[in-house]
């Protein structure tokens, strides 16, 4: 079913919870089982914890356009009490959800029976105090805030600030700053809409707050540039503090150059020292202190460079892949086609291609590395570029903040892989 296509995956700060959003506007949260000695093989499995409908399809009456219910992004808030909070957004509206557990219920009410029927007040002769009795665990999700009507264009990113009080939301042309408690107002902090839309040359593709500096955020563009902004310098951050762009060799420029340079995702490292960007063919790591060029470039699927014509015709060239860091920033991961995903070890400079599919993933079996062959004689086990299934795209991946556990979304299936212990 098309509504089951997973559109976002995100671990919470502890990694105990994993949230997925789908095209049908639903959010499914998985919880990691506590490891216990009686079931050693359960070894931290993720099971469904809560499912709820976050967004419904709407109609924009002014433009006569449908507003999709697809969840574009989910971001968790740091946990402050027993309940869990997350932000989920579609193209137009951001919602703050509270997920809480209920494992006790009160019994012995005075005015109503156990099944809820009201008791006849004349029959009540004694007063009793209700007592709390344990019940089967119930997980409830309730919308606590709805942040609507602030975006003319389609929201592509949300990012919670390290101050835990504010967050940003970015659409194609504007970025807004919100306070988590206030829904009727937001501040516009970036506006790249030209006075004359004919002069439009680039759009905002992703935005994120710095993990430690609450005044700093970055946003990427469809032209392959990243701007770092400091909210202390001015209220409207149209002028960037830093501008990151890799110089291009003009002789190699082609019709496709700008399209494949469009950045589909930007992520700060946990340390806050680096950031990573994903464009169509590669992942680049940037040192925030150096704007002139990235410090690392990793090829994801360079063999697609000779297929750009057909990838343009079938629109795959516009696919937006995400990328993520592992907890120690020593490795990065991103998806590709044919249900392949790639992991790069920054220390050893080794990379691997793995596949997320039912055939290749038996429980507790190791994943076998895959290889794409680009021409000539194909070895056994290799796949030729022409046999790749471009409908099987892995756009969304997530890495546990501490452990070597990864979540990979392959269309409407979620795969969770863990590092083997012994």
């Amino acid at each position, binding site marked *: 079913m098309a509504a089951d296509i997973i559109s976002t995956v995100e671990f919470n700060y502890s990694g105990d919870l994993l949230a997925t959003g789908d095209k049908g506007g639903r959010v499914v949260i998985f919880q990691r089982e506590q490891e216990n000695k009686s079931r050693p093989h359960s070894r931290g499995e993720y099971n469904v914890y809560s499912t709820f409908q976050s967004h419904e*399809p709407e*109609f924009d*009456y002014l*433009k*006569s*356009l*449908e*507003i*999709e219910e697809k969840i574009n992004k989910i971001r968790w808030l740091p946990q402050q009490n027993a309940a869990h909070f997350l932000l989920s957004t579609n*193209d137009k509206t951001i919602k703050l959800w509270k997920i809480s557990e209920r494992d006790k219920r009160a019994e012995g009410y005075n005015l109503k029976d156990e099944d809820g029927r009201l008791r006849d007040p004349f029959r009540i002769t004694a007063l009793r105090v209700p007592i709390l009795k344990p019940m089967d665990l119930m997980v409830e999700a309730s919308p606590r805030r709805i942040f609507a009507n602030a975006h003319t*264009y*389609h929201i592509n990113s949300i990012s919670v600030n390290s101050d835990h009080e504010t967050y940003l939301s970015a659409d*194609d*042309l504007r970025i807004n700053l919100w306070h988590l408690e206030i829904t009727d107002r937001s501040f516009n902090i970036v506006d790249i809409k030209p006075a004359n*839309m*004919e*002069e*439009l*040359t*680039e*759009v905002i593709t992703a935005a994120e707050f710095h993990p430690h500096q609450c005044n700093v955020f970055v946003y990427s563009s*469809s*032209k392959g540039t990243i701007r770092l902004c400091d909210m202390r310098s001015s209220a409207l951050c149209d002028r960037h503090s830093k501008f990151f762009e890799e110089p291009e060799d003009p002789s*190699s420029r*082609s*019709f*496709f*150059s*700008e*399209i494949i340079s469009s950045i589909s995702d930007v992520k700060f490292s946990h340390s806050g020292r680096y950031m990573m960007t994903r464009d169509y063919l590669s992942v680049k790591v940037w040192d925030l202190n150096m704007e002139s060029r990235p410090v690392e470039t990793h090829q994801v699927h360079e063999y697609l*460079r*000779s*297929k*750009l*014509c057909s990838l*343009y*015709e079938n629109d795959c060239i516009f696919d937006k892949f995400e990328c993520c860091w592992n907890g120690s920033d020593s490795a990065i991961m991103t998806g590709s086609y044919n249900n392949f995903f790639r992991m790069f070890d920054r220390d050893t400079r080794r990379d691997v291609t793995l596949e997320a599919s039912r055939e290749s993933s038996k429980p507790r079996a190791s994943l076998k590395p895959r290889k794409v*062959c680009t*021409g*000539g*004689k194909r*070895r056994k086990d290799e796949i030729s570029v022409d046999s790749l299934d471009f409908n099987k795209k892995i756009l969304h991946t997530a890495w546990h903040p501490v452990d070597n556990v990864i979540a990979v979304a392959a269309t409407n299936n979620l795969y969770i892989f863990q590092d083997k212990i012994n």
Partner: protein
Amino acid sequence: MSAEVPEAASAEEQKSEHNMLPWSLQPSIPNSLEEMEDKVTSPEKAEEAKLKARYPHLGQKPGGSDFLRKRLQKGQKYFDSGDYNMAKAKMKNKQLPTAAPDKTEVTGDHIPTPQDLPQRKPSLVASKLAG
């Protein structure tokens, strides 16, 4: 892509001599100057030439404002909210199981009597008046 075929053939020939090297590291010696030039042209430019051959009227600036404006207006456009609601209702109806076609449909042969006509199916959308 046609330049790749003779290269593969020569790589095959080389393979028997250089059995130690994995395929990816084998030197591929071009057969002619023409092939050398093809190798020098980036695969990207070759793809661009292919695209221009198929769509000669393709605009000069692919990242230009037309392209971006189309991107800004994603989402299906409807004539008005009535059109949208009709389309939504149609989708919902499609998902409901379709009733088996009436086997004794009477048309064309004779003037039907009330007994011949199939029972009117109840409305799928209950009227608000029905409470």
